[in-house]
């Protein structure tokens, strides 16, 4: 059912327009469950779309799923759009998603950096950053995962505008980041924030800007291990689990550190499938297996959030 719904092939990489059309189609197919909302415009004025999955009214406890903040990580956007279709097709048919959505809302942003995504498809396949420009600076773009107000410009981010990890001129300077921050803060009832990246098969939680453990370390670690186990159960894909700092490197200004420091306890970030053999070029035939296994891990996390609302 997910493989080819209407004209959309979930086992292929797509242009931004095609992804946006499919988000619209999902909302049209399930008007009582899904809606497409514009939460802002990118630097190059592209709409920033979020799919809201909800069966109730008001600001219910919510989960934020974020994909594609680094534009070249195409498997993350592809996984995001598959997840969107999976959520609507599972509601009413699968007990855990049904019970989550009976009480909570899910917001899913499959393309968090649309300018970068278009640039990676038209100019440079390995573009990672946004496409913002600062007068007087020759290099383009900011790393949107160093731009959040969580120990901004600290360790593991670069002051050099030409670097792949440039933190930007100030926290939330990137409209793509600020739009999400404003949306989440205005909503005020998010319980979980999950960011999806690729590659190298990791499931991490705060912190990135320090190697100090977060106060909820034991619980986050336990949930992440269970999620990684569920993920591995499908195709044997092995993940490493731990805080960003000790699992890969110190990185300040990251999305999940911001989420955690702003009271969103269940903050996780994935690095999807591939041990490095394909880099950011994971063959399209691996999109569906990657999405399927990732979904199992996401479900473990979302169920835990649902059972431990605070």
């Amino acid at each position, binding site marked *: 059912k997910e493989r080819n719904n209407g*004209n959309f*092939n979930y086992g*292929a*990489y*797509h242009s931004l327009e*095609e992804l946006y059309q499919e988000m619209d189609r999902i909302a049209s197919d399930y008007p009582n469950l899904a809606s497409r909302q514009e939460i802002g415009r990118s630097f190059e004025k592209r709409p920033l779309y979020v799919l809201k999955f909800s069966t109730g009214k008001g600001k219910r406890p919510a989960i934020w799923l974020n994909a594609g903040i680094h534009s070249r990580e195409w498997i993350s956007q592809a996984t995001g759009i598959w997840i969107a279709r999976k959520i609507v097709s599972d509601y009413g048919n699968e007990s855990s998603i049904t019970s989550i959505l009976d009480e909570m809302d899910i917001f899913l942003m499959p393309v968090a950096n649309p300018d970068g995504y278009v640039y990676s498809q*038209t*100019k*440079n*396949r*390995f573009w990672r950053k946004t496409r913002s420009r600062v007068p007087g600076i020759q290099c383009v773009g900011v790393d949107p995962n160093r731009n959040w107000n969580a120990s901004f410009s600290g360790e593991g981010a670069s002051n050099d505008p030409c670097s792949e990890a440039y933190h930007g001129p100030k926290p939330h300077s990137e409209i793509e980041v600020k739009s999400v921050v404003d949306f989440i803060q205005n909503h005020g009832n998010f319980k979980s924030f999950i960011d999806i990246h690729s590659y*190298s098969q990791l499931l991490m939680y705060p912190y990135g800007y320090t190697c100090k453990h977060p106060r909820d370390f034991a619980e986050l670690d336990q949930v992440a291990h269970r999620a990684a186990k569920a993920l591995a159960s499908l195709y044997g894909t092995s993940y490493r689990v731990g805080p960003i700092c000790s699992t*890969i*490197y110190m990185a300040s200004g990251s999305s999940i550190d911001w989420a955690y420091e702003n009271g969103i306890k269940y903050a996780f970030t994935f690095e999807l499938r591939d041990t*490095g*053999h*394909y*880099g*950011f*070029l994971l063959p*399209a035939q691996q999109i569906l297996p990657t999405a399927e296994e990732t979904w199992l891990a996401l479900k473990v996390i979302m169920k835990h959030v649902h059972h431990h609302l605070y």
Partner: protein
Amino acid sequence: KEKFNGHQVFQIKVRDGEQMNKLNELVNMENFKLNFWKLPTTPKRSVDVVVPSSSLKLVKSFLESHGLEYSISIEDLQALLDEEIKEMKHNRG
């Protein structure tokens, strides 16, 4: 559109801190025009780096002279990109 003809991706294994330092020297060699997809962080994590065709010989000799173990994970980056583009065109519509 930027082309990557003849570029290769190396996966480099690092055994200890000393090798890590050597690899960081490579990171800072701007004239090699390397693009690190995975940076050197801890000895447990391999490093993935795109090496342009013009730097292949120099990088190989640097790695070999310092005993750094590496393998070529992508032989021709542009060939893989061409395949990806072909597949996307095929799947469109």
